[in-house]
């Protein structure tokens, strides 16, 4: 009987060795270990053995069974792996084929600039405020020290819809609204980005353009505060090495008034075609809030001072992204729009 068992073991091992698929493996399993399998029939013949022989033979059968089972398991694992590998092989794709395009949209460059400006000033505690684009003559001009017939109204030829309403020529109109709404409370710290309109249309002027206005009112606000604030803004926006130059100018709503030039960010101030060899680029109008404007909007000019500034968003965007023509912003060619679809460097 021992020999018979040894024989079974030997042939089983050989058979398992040769097996090449799971079906055959299963057949072998049944053949040797099944209810009617060869090892099982050996066990059945044990009743004819002597009580002394039984445990010996029983132990032997169990040993061989474990042995075979073990081998079958190993074989099965090998076969499973081969099968999986084959499947994976068959699933191979050409990874160089084009992707399925996940649509990525883009923000309009002027709105990108607005968001950037907003973030800078919000971080300094400014509130972003909004005002009507169809404004009254009173808020757009009269409350800003520009009475009817004032020659400086020529600087801002406007689109009226009736004698008292016009498309705002400047975001400064919001200054008056903010002051009136605050009823002499201080400090005021706001910016107002938005669309503005003037009767002007050529390669460098669009009848519609973006502007952002800033206003600070409190006790003891000075021109030095204005300069420091604009330095933070310009350096964040156009480069940390930017310098500012204040040139005296005239705006009816500020006194004193200054045009602000920034050192040319293309040549660093050495002189190039962008800055017309001057090393400076005009980017802002600014000044100390005119006492008449304070008074007209409910603030006592003897107690409070303030500064205001305004800059063209289109121009900022043109500089920042190197856009040569203001009309591109409003043409909205999708090949233009899609270029503004990524994170910019900080």
């Amino acid at each position, binding site marked *: 009987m021992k020999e018979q068992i040894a024989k079974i073991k030997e042939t089983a091992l050989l058979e398992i060795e040769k097996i090449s698929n799971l079906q055959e493996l299963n057949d072998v399993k049944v053949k040797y270990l099944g209810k009617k399998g060869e090892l099982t029939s050996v066990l059945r013949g044990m009743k004819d053995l002597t009580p002394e022989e039984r445990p010996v033979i029983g132990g032997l059968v169990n040993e061989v069974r474990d042995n075979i089972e073990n081998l079958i398991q190993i074989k099965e694992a090998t076969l499973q792996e081969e099968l999986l590998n084959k499947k994976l092989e068959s699933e191979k794709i050409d990874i160089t084929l*084009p992707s399925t395009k*996940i649509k990525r949209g883009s923000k309009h460059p002027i709105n990108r600039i607005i968001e950037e400006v907003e973030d800078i000033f919000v971080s300094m505690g400014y509130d972003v405020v909004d005002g009507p684009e169809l404004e009254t003559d009173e808020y757009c001009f009269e409350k800003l020290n520009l009475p009817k017939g004032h020659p400086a109204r020529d600087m801002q030829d406007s689109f009226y*819809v009736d004698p008292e309403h016009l498309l705002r020529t400047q975001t400064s109109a919001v200054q008056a609204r903010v002051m009136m709404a605050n009823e002499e409370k201080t400090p005021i710290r706001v910016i107002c980005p938005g669309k503005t309109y003037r*009767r002007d249309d050529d390669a460098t002027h669009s009848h519609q353009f973006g502007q952002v206005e800033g206003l600070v009112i409190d006790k003891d606000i000075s*021109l030095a505060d204005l300069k420091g604030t604009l330095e933070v803004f310009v350096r964040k926006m156009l480069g940390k090495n930017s310098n500012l130059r204040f*040139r*005296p100018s005239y705006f009816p709503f500020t006194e004193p*008034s200054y045009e602000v030039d920034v050192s040319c960010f293309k040549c660093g101030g050495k002189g190039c075609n962008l800055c017309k060899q001057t090393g400076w680029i005009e980017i802002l109008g600014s000044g100390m809030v005119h006492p008449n404007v304070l008074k007209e909007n409910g603030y006592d000019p003897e107690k409070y001072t303030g500064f205001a500034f305004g800059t063209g968003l289109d121009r900022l965007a043109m500089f920042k992204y190197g856009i040569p023509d203001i009309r591109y912003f409003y043409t909205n060619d999708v090949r233009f729009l899609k270029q503004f679809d990524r994170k910019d460097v900080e």
Partner: protein
Amino acid sequence: MKLSKNFVKDYVDIDVDINTLAEDMTKVGNEYDSAGKLINATNLIIGEVIECKEHPNSDHLHVCKVNIGKEILDIVCGAPNVRKGLKVILAQVGAELPDGITIKKGSIRGEESNGMLCSLLELGMESKYVPEIDKTGIHELPEDAPVGENPIEYMGLSDEIVDFELTANRGDLLSILGMAYELGAIYDKPVKEVDLKHSETDENVNDSFKVEINTDNCNLFLAKKALNVTIKESPDFIKNRLISSGIRPINNVVDISNYVMLELGQPLHFYDSDRLGERIVVRMAEPNEKLTTLDNIERTLSKEDIVISNGKEAIGLAGVMGGLSTEVEETTKNIIIESAIFDGVKVRCTSKNILRSEASNRFEKGLDPNRTYMAIERACVLLEKYADAKIAKGTVIYDKSDKNEKKIDIKFKDINGLLGMEISKEEILNVFRKLNFKYVENGEIITVTVPTRRLDISIKEDLIEEVGRIYGVDNIEGKLPVLPIKTGSYNKTIREIRNKMVTLGLNETMSYVLINEKEANKYILDSFEAIKLLDPLTEERNTLRYSMIPSLVKIFEYNSDRNNKDVSIFEIGKGFGKINEDYIEEEKLCVLMSGKFYEGVGNTRNVDFYILKGIAEEVLDYLGYNGRYSFVANKELPKEFHPGQTAYVIVNGEQVGIIGKLHPSETKEDVYVMEINLSKLLAKMVGKMKYKEISKFPSIKKDLAFVVDKDIDSQTIEKQIKKSAGNLLTAIEVFDVYTGNRIEANKKSIAYSLTFSDSKKTLTDDEVTGIFNKIIADAEKILGITLRG
């Protein structure tokens, strides 16, 4: 304002390069457009033609010998007026002329030529200033012109000019004298006196001439009389200075009135006294009053125009243009000189309608009454000298002007406080001295007397600006205002909507608010009145848009024409309209989609209604309106929309927008648009975001399909299903719509997948079957639809 350096040097002794002068003026706030020489040509010399023969190989060229003193040059010249004995301007070899022309030695049709004879046009002078002969030939110098010398200097044209773009407040700089004060302040130089001395006859003008002012719009009017004038050409210095300043010389008398205006900033008017008569009446025009102005055009006036009359009829438009009937002519003998101040606002309005002139520009900016007095005397000085005039004694005066000098008190600390600087008292006082402002120092207070020429200075801040201008603010150390720390705020919702649209794959546009009136009335559901401009730039842009759809459609067309067919764009902006006499301005979100939405190999999806609807739902759900909106078909649609593929967007029962396909008559492409009124939408409150317990018990899914008439929409069925099912139905989804030959022709099959769950217990099959059967029974009973067999 063109500043002639020669002219201003009459009053202030400056000796700086013209470009430095322009830059120095810029630093104190006076920007310029250009700076340079009046005549920008080099290497010119006066020559005399000593021989002039016809060119052997040409029918119009001449071969000349020209004596330039040091040598005699062979020159070929094509001008018809070149002749022996003529004194000419010769550009020598190496000369540089305007427009980049350099004169080279050459041979013209076989004859040597060592230079070029020039006309003033070739030297860059504008044609309106050059003699007629220069337009067809070369310039003819007088017989006594000195051979060998510089012709530009000889003609007095060696001037340098800066063309300033002055700010609206600095009317005082519209005069040479004003410029002299400004330059005097910059370079710390004194300003010279104006020569006002002339002799007068015994006859007093007041005996024979009267002035009557019948309007508040003229507060100063002076008149003097100049007798026996000789009308002739002006002396060169007057002509050249006018040319340098951009005014064409005419004759000595007209030139003198312009010269004084340039010099002192006060416009003058000269009347032919014999044609004018014995008096002047200043009044407002009658409605529709007629007047023929100097340019021989009959003007129709309104009661807003100030006119000069002779007591019977209008003879001039005050401050703008004189009348033809009293114009100074070749034969004029006697002149009435007018020097007056008219209201700037009125002159501005009149000149806007008629003509912007050098004179009207000065009236608009405001005039100094002391200059009005100076100017009339100055005109007399020049008329006496250069027009042989005898000046009648006295002046006819009407004067209600304020000639007092303003006194302004200012503290030193106010100046440094507002500028944020530390300028010493000495430096501050030095600025006022340089500006020629008188001042009295009284401890911490300075009382500054502002000369009447500086109309722009009326408050202490104006003086602070002067200190900043002349002292310079280059050295200000920037600092940040000391204010309480707080967080700033901005409109986060709009920005989030923009971000949402971008992540959904749309490109943001920015388009013009002004569009054409016809366009402005398209695609619109609401009743409104379009707002039109009173004075549009073009008809294309004469109306404010109410909807942004017309703009986005235009953008689509632009792109489509350039073969950019896949367009998915959006814009957030304002729409304007008049509703019940009120102007309204509302924030809107507009989307337009066409072409492919996404694209992969063998996996491309074109935009259709459902993609756009998905985008709408994305936005509405994101904003928290889940479950409160619906898309509802409606027969009332703007005609530009496809009647079968368009819906109202309804939120909380109110229409807030429209979504759909454009009508094929609008565009041949498949274009889908949506517009949502964000002002209306965002006014609807949204609840706070809050966690909802997830059911711990398994849910049960069951499918069912109905066969229904094609006209019945899914939303109706869904609503009924939800109603029948109650709150154990947690989700309902359409997973198939079928039309085809396996069902009746005018029917469709819609298949729904229903999910049931209970957060408190495990649902039993029986419970779900019960609900399921009720759904089917209700559908049959209420909607009359049957389960698909």
